[in-house]
């Protein structure tokens, strides 16, 4: 009885995902250039949110430093685009800052596949490095979170200070070409958008696979009782490190796509505020549910850009109220709301599944305590 029920639910869910993907893939047909560009940017953000959800929602590790990983990916792509745009000459800001030749660490970014690989590897390795020294030493909870904030400050200060090498506060902008094609042609924009959707779908499936695998179970177990997991013979630090590095890599990918759509990256995008904003996407969507992270990212960014267009003078207040309302009244986020709505429907339909819904609320309870 229950298995048929679950199968049917799974089928509906699958259909829903396919429909959502179809809607996204067809967006170039019904959205204007500007709106498509906006959506592309939000979808890039969603990739970072998925990684963050895996780390925070599933493993219980709160990182307020994902702006850095996002930024490192973005800079990797930005450096490649800047070199493309400058041709044989030095990038303009290096010229102003008194450099006469290209710094050695810019050289590898001349080649596109290398730049992409570095855009994934650098954030992943940095996360692994940080994770190695924290998780292994059992630094966790608030202490870990504070360390990630410190990382943000260190990296942004470094990027602002080293103007000659990074472009300083202005960041990198004025890109023209990608792989020899003009970056802003209609075809290129559509291709980049579709590439973003494709990456998002792949990342979503991968994250779902991980979450439902044995590893996902271990991650949730770490979240709910790290010591018990250790007593069972697992090493939580390894899992935390791997998840941290994986979500860092996803943030890097998101950053690379962001630069391609927005055409600028500056240290302000990797600062404390954007890092916290990423957490908000996940929190508002509903942590511990991948679809929630996705929905939260889209909802929040649409709210932000819609409110600021409609009320340029007061939009920040509106957004603030939205945050408060959601955190106070919807601790499970939008996904939590949908789930409790579905539960309510099921409860009305019949009492046969009392057992299951009980299990659910236990899970929700533990979600909240993370």
């Amino acid at each position, binding site marked *: 009885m229950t298995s048929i029920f679950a199968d049917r639910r799974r089928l509906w869910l699958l259909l829903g995902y396919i429909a959502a993907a179809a809607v996204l893939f067809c967006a170039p047909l019904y959205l204007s250039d500007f709106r498509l560009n906006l959506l592309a940017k939000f979808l890039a953000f969603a990739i970072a949110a998925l990684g963050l959800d895996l780390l925070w929602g599933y493993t219980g590790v709160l990182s307020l430093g994902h702006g850095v990983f996002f930024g490192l990916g973005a800079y990797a792509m930005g450096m490649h685009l800047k070199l493309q745009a400058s041709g044989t000459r030095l990038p303009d800001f290096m010229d102003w800052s008194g450099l006469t030749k290209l710094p050695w660490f810019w050289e590898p970014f001349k080649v596109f596949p290398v730049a992409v690989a570095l855009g994934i590897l650098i954030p992943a390795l940095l996360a692994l490095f940080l994770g190695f020294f924290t998780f292994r030493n059992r630094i966790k909870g608030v202490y870990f979170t504070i360390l990630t904030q410190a990382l943000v400050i260190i990296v942004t200060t470094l990027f602002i200070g080293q103007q000659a090498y990074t472009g300083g506060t202005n960041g990198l902008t004025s890109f023209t070409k990608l792989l020899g094609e003009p970056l802003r042609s209609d075809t290129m924009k559509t291709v980049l958008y579709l590439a973003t959707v494709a990456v998002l779908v792949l990342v979503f499936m991968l994250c779902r696979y991980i979450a439902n695998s044995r590893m996902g179970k271990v991650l949730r177990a770490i979240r709910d009782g790290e010591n018990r997991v250790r007593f069972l013979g697992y090493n939580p630090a390894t899992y935390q490190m791997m998840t941290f590095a994986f979500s860092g890599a996803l943030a890097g990918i998101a950053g690379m796509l962001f630069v391609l759509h927005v055409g600028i990256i500056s240290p302000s995008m990797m600062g404390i505020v954007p890092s916290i904003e990423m957490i908000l996407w996940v929190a508002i969507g509903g942590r511990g549910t991948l679809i929630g992270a996705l929905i939260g990212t889209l*909802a929040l960014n649409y709210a932000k*850009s819609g409110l600021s267009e409609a009320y340029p003078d007061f939009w920040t207040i509106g957004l603030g109220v939205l945050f408060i309302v*959601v955190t106070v009244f*919807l601790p499970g986020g939008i996904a939590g709301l949908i789930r409790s709505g579905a539960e309510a429907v099921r409860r009305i339909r019949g009492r046969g599944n009392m057992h299951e819904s009980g299990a659910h609320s236990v899970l929700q309870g533990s979600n909240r305590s993370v």
Partner: protein
Amino acid sequence: MKRKGNWFKGMGLAVSVSLALVGCGSNNENNSASSSAPASSAPASSSAASEGGTVKVGILHSLSGTMSISEVTVKNSELMAIDEINAAGGVLGKQIEPVIEDGASDWPTFAEKARKLISEDKAATVFGGWTSASRKAMLPVFEELNGLLWYPVQYEGLESSPNIFYTGATTNQQIVPSVDYLLEQGKKKFFLLGSDYVFPRTANKIIKAQLAAKGGETVAEEYTPLGHTDYTTIIAKIKEAKPDVVYNTLNGDSNVAFFKQLKDAGIAAADLTTLSVSIAEEEVKGIGADFLAGHLVAWNYYQTTDTPENKTFVESFKAKYGADSVTSDPMEAGYTAVYLWKAAVEKAGSFDVDAVKAAAGGIEFNAPEGKVTIDGENQHIYKTVRIGEIQSDGMIKELWNSGSPVKPDPYLKGYDWAGDLSSGS
């Protein structure tokens, strides 16, 4: 207990459902607006900006975030210019409809909103920006979509985009003459202090070259991060270096801290000359005139500038935004930009960007700062340079001016000592 819990849940549900509805509503609006936009505007995209009796222009400044204190005032003066023009019959018989967007002190947001103003709203032109970073973020968008931006703030030069008009000073209309002025006053030893970003760094590079060529001396060069507020170390270094003048390119809140701590350290304007290029009337109000009285600044316009146009400008601004509001250089440049655009549109007889650009060269306007002229070649404007001294009432008294408007030279091509600097052109 249980009942209370249910009540809470119910209320939470109600709020969230209504939120979701609101969210859906706005989303739908977005979708319908965006889906209908291409259909309706495709046949007449070039004239969409000027359909009916109005023409849309964008106003894009930071209305939230760290830069909002400064940028809101420029937004206000630009809106005032638009109101004045509308009251006098508009441009080419059309009323100007401002579309205001918030850049939120965030550079990618500036790029996003610029794109929105040009491609969604079909704004005929955009007035906006303050920081160099925001301008550099918007520049590729304006060049890609062939939009038109009027940028109202003094900046570091070395730029001349075909899609931007610069109505603030470039380096040879503010920094270079102010250094000459100080040298003439017998100040030879310069202490360079600035916030760590592109404007102070580029400005100081120019100053160092200029001092080297003209017999001055750079005794120290110090940078602090934007928003830095502890200047005791810097002040100790100043005391030790004993410069004739501190050339100050600090921006924002840092100025408050620096001047207060300078006064606390017992250094008054009589003991040590400072010249600042980012402190105008609005900032004096924020820092407090008693900390700043006697210190020097360099701009192209002061509230006290003695022209008939300025008298009207100050009066109408006070009438509109309150008697205690002040006017400053960037506000004047923003106000002037709106009138220059109007003049260019009327000369071109069209709102088309290319036609307006082609017509703009040589246009003259009697601005509050005096006569300004658009240089058709680099799209900057001729401006009079003024050195002023801050008074204890918060106003700035003019000590020296260049006599006539100075031709803009963003790449400093007309200065022998600046040969290396302009290689980027």
